[in-house]
């Protein structure tokens, strides 16, 4: 798969540190499942985690902790379902594995809700701040111009989307923050489906946008 738009270094770093809000971590995990380039970019920050772990002064461990663990080594692995999934090749599906565990393997037959004309959505689990949504934008549909108070991560799963930065297709990720104002447009005949996560409310920059903001849930 040819992917042209990747994650920001700062996003990858915080993902590895375990510091990314839940919804953004979901978008990152989905992009990583599709992108060899970004997966290889995990290795340096992961080595930072290893070095930090090694540098910590050892905490006190109860004397019987080792024995308790040794007693459990032969226990059947209660997490074996997920560990089996980890070693089994996943069938290529349109839905990346981390998202498939939430919505299943198909983007069709989902229960979409209408947000505004031309845009439907499905809410996904999010952190305390911001939102995580699957969006379906009708062909030619536009998202009203907006800036961000925080980060906005968008992963294209079907169709394509264009904005001031470029054209985004399946696998591409748009990783933006409050430095950017943009107006995404679904520019292909089939429209597009994308996974979006924010960590703060976005800010619509037009009067109409501000009027409809309460309706959009962003």
């Amino acid at each position: 798969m040819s992917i042209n738009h990747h994650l920001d270094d700062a996003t990858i770093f915080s993902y590895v540190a375990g510091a990314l809000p839940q919804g953004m971590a979901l978008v990152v995990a989905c992009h990583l499942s599709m992108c060899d380039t970004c997966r290889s970019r995990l290795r340096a920050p992961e080595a930072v985690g290893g070095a930090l772990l090694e540098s910590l002064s050892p905490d006190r461990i109860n004397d019987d902790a080792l024995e308790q663990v040794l007693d459990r080594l032969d226990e059947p692995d209660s997490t074996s379902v997920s560990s089996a999934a980890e070693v089994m090749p996943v069938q290529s599906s349109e839905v990346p594995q981390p998202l498939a565990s939430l919505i299943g393997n198909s983007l069709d037959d989902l229960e979409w809700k209408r947000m505004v004309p031309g845009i439907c959505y499905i809410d996904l689990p999010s952190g305390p701040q911001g939102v995580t949504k699957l969006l379906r934008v009708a062909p030619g549909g536009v998202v009203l111009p907006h800036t961000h108070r925080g980060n906005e991560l968008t992963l294209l799963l079907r169709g394509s989307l264009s904005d001031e930065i470029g054209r985004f297709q399946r696998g591409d990720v748009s990783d933006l923050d409050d430095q950017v104002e943009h107006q995404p447009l679904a520019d292909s005949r089939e429209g597009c489906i994308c996974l979006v996560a924010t960590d703060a409310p976005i800010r619509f920059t037009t009067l109409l946008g501000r009027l409809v903001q309460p309706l959009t849930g962003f």
Partner: protein
Amino acid sequence: MENTPPGDDVDNLAFLSKQHAEEFEHMSWTQLLAQLGVSKDRKVYIQLFRHFAPRVKAYIRRLGVLESVADELTQETMLSVWRKAHMFNPEKAAASTWIFTLARNQSIDWMRKQKYPEYSYEEVFHDAEESATEGTPDIDQGLVTDRVMTAINTLPENQAQVLYMSFFEGRSHAEISSRLDIPLGSVKSRIRLACEKLKQHWRGEA
């Protein structure tokens, strides 16, 4: 004079464990973990446990977890070291790096009561060309860890601060921004600068 059979020696367990430590002395933690993946040898596991469990607990405690819970999460992490050791690849990561990610997932899943989204591992295995994109020369991963530690110690204070807040406190960009009272853009550029420097050392260019 009493003649105690070796098997009845109360110090036997401690003695054996010391003997094992000597037996494995010439091996790095990364080599030991790789061996565990192949042999599932309890003697090897005990050595790894003694070294890593106290550090895993220290990491989990720094995330702000109560001691009793930290003990439990440490045990779960060390149990997953045993269960997943066959998936460890010593050419891609040091033992400490791999165990860090296990400890991170274990503690975040507990703190958030939601599973921290993980990318699908199996595709990593299918990707033989990965190292072509960005990799370290074929050297011992323990040395890579040392180089990265050197890099961390030479970071300017404001970059080291965002690094520690991310890794040891699990704080997001937004949280760091409000804690330090600096714009989101500054948080991210400090992280990016730190990444750049760390990557250079990690590749062995610095």
